[in-house]
């Protein structure tokens, strides 16, 4: 509560600034961001514009010709693209919420000052996202193989009666991919929360404890609202990450069985490098991702109530 009044105070004091001061501050503000604006302009926007122009062309490799919006029309009649899009949206809807909640949960548990071995637990949970994908894919395929450890475990627990074909059944393969992404990226998201939790005023928890608030109440009434900017941040980057999902699919199922696990980014890769290269159409598919992320991020900003 006190936090809120504090910030409104700052706000009103800002309004009282004179024009000159404001101008000077504004000018200095631009200096802070100048290098980034130029750098991103050069290294990202310039290529992005080129990529957009490319998306209006079609052809093999270097033999491109202008086709206007034909590539965009082609998307709607491309069954491979449609399955890639559907799969990616399924990954997004199922995986991102699970991971965000899990990461938040871990970070609150691991933020306890009295917890022993926190360094070990934190490092262990973070480790998956550091590990090179080459090995992790090999091992994952062993774990989820027909006579792999996962099946053995489930058989021993009598949860299944015969081994499951994790990697060659369309639904199970999707579940495997979702498990793989969650396993790999939960620790990564945990870091953002862990670091942000240090910036939450500890006195607020003490006050809440004196008022008799339970741990769960503290979580929902202090932790979540205080971490809102970071939760927004992680959900947006996870959305982007999932829409651009490539590594897990490429290394674990290569999009199969059929196209059951194909992601949009994997399709872009195939169009550019695996098949005879059509960079124009690949750029078109890339812009679909951009459009989707823009829409989803706008929704997320809106839901989080981030003031403009």
């Amino acid at each position, binding site marked *: 509560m006190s936090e809120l009044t504090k910030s409104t105070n700052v706000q009103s004091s800002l309004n009282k600034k004179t024009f000159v001061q404001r101008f000077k501050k504004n000018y200095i503000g631009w200096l*802070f961001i100048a290098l980034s604006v130029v750098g991103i302009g050069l290294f990202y926007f310039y*290529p992005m514009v080129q990529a957009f122009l490319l998306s209006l062309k079609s052809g093999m490799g270097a033999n491109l010709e202008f086709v206007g919006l034909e590539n965009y029309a082609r998307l709607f009649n491309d069954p491979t693209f449609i399955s890639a899009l559907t799969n990616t949206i399924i990954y997004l809807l199922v995986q991102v919420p699970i991971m965000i909640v899990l990461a938040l949960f871990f970070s609150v*548990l691991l933020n306890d000052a009295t917890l022993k071995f926190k360094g070990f637990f934190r490092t262990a949970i973070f480790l998956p996202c550091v590990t090179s994908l080459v090995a992790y894919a090999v091992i994952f395929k062993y774990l989820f193989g027909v006579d792999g450890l996962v099946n053995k475990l489930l058989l021993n627990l009598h949860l299944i009666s015969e081994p499951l074909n994790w990697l060659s059944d369309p639904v199970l393969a999707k579940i495997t991919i979702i498990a793989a992404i969650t396993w790999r990226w939960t620790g990564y998201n945990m870091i953002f929360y*862990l*670091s942000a939790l240090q*910036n939450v005023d500890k006195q607020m928890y003490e006050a809440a404890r004196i008022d008799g608030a339970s741990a769960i109440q503290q979580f929902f009434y202090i932790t979540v609202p205080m971490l809102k*900017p970071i939760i927004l941040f992680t959900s947006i980057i996870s959305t982007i990450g999932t829409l651009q999902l490539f590594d897990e699919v490429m290394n674990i199922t290569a999009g199969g069985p059929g196209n059951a696990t194909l992601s949009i*980014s994997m399709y872009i890769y195939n169009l550019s490098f695996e098949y005879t290269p059509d960079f124009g159409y690949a750029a078109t598919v890339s812009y679909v991702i951009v459009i989707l992320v823009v829409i989803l991020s706008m929704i997320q900003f809106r839901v989080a109530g981030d003031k403009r």
Partner: protein
Amino acid sequence: MKKLKRVATYLFLSIAALVSIFPFLWMLVSMTNKSVDVTAGRLLPGTHLFENLKVLFGQVDIASAMWNSTIIAVITTFLTLLIGSLAGYGFEIYRTRGKDMIFNILLLSMMIPFAAIMIPLYRLFGRISGTAPFIGIDTLAAALLPTVITAFFIFFFRQNTKMFAKELVEAGRIDGLSELGIFFRIYVPTMKTTYAAAAIIAFMNSWNNYLWPLVVLQSPEKLTIPLLISNLGAGYSPDYGVIMTAIVIATLPTALVFFFMQKHFVAGMMGSVKG
């Protein structure tokens, strides 16, 4: 009741930790085995560790790849943190309608898959090579430049700055500090944990970065760790024992960076600064 909760917490965390590190333990075991044993899924330590290391340090030059990756990662981390936090701070503290709009536009740059802008970016560096060969194709500078200025870290620092007590800025101004002085003397020390988190992520991103270094670095002596591991897996008969050994070696630096950085995540330290 309280004790029971404690036990449950430890049990839960232990299971989570085990699930997380199990593949890594597998790799640790595999690095001591021959390729045929690794592919057979052998879970017992073997005696082939020395031979695997000999291949990595003899036939393959893992030492120089480690060096290249380290140089790139350290420089990238430092520059990323500096540039990203300056901008994140600038966008939040000197917030105006115009800057907000630019910020939103910058966010767009995160949304395009890198594969789509790789070819134009390569062409750009091809042109840069003409006038400034020291940052052109096949230089370490070219490998790291597009990764040090990213919307990701600007966004990250901006969101964290939202949690920064802005009255400290006013206090700094009253004390007569310059705007940049406030940033370096007040903001940076206060946001230590944010920097720690950003350092972990920046180091890891750089260490694992694959596609761009692959395309832009040409000379064999500039090979980075992910490229080296990729090479080991190529061919008709890859040696999985050597691959696993290389991956364990490649994983350690980032794990160590994390282990030392996470010590800064100590609960409730910052509360006092605000009061």
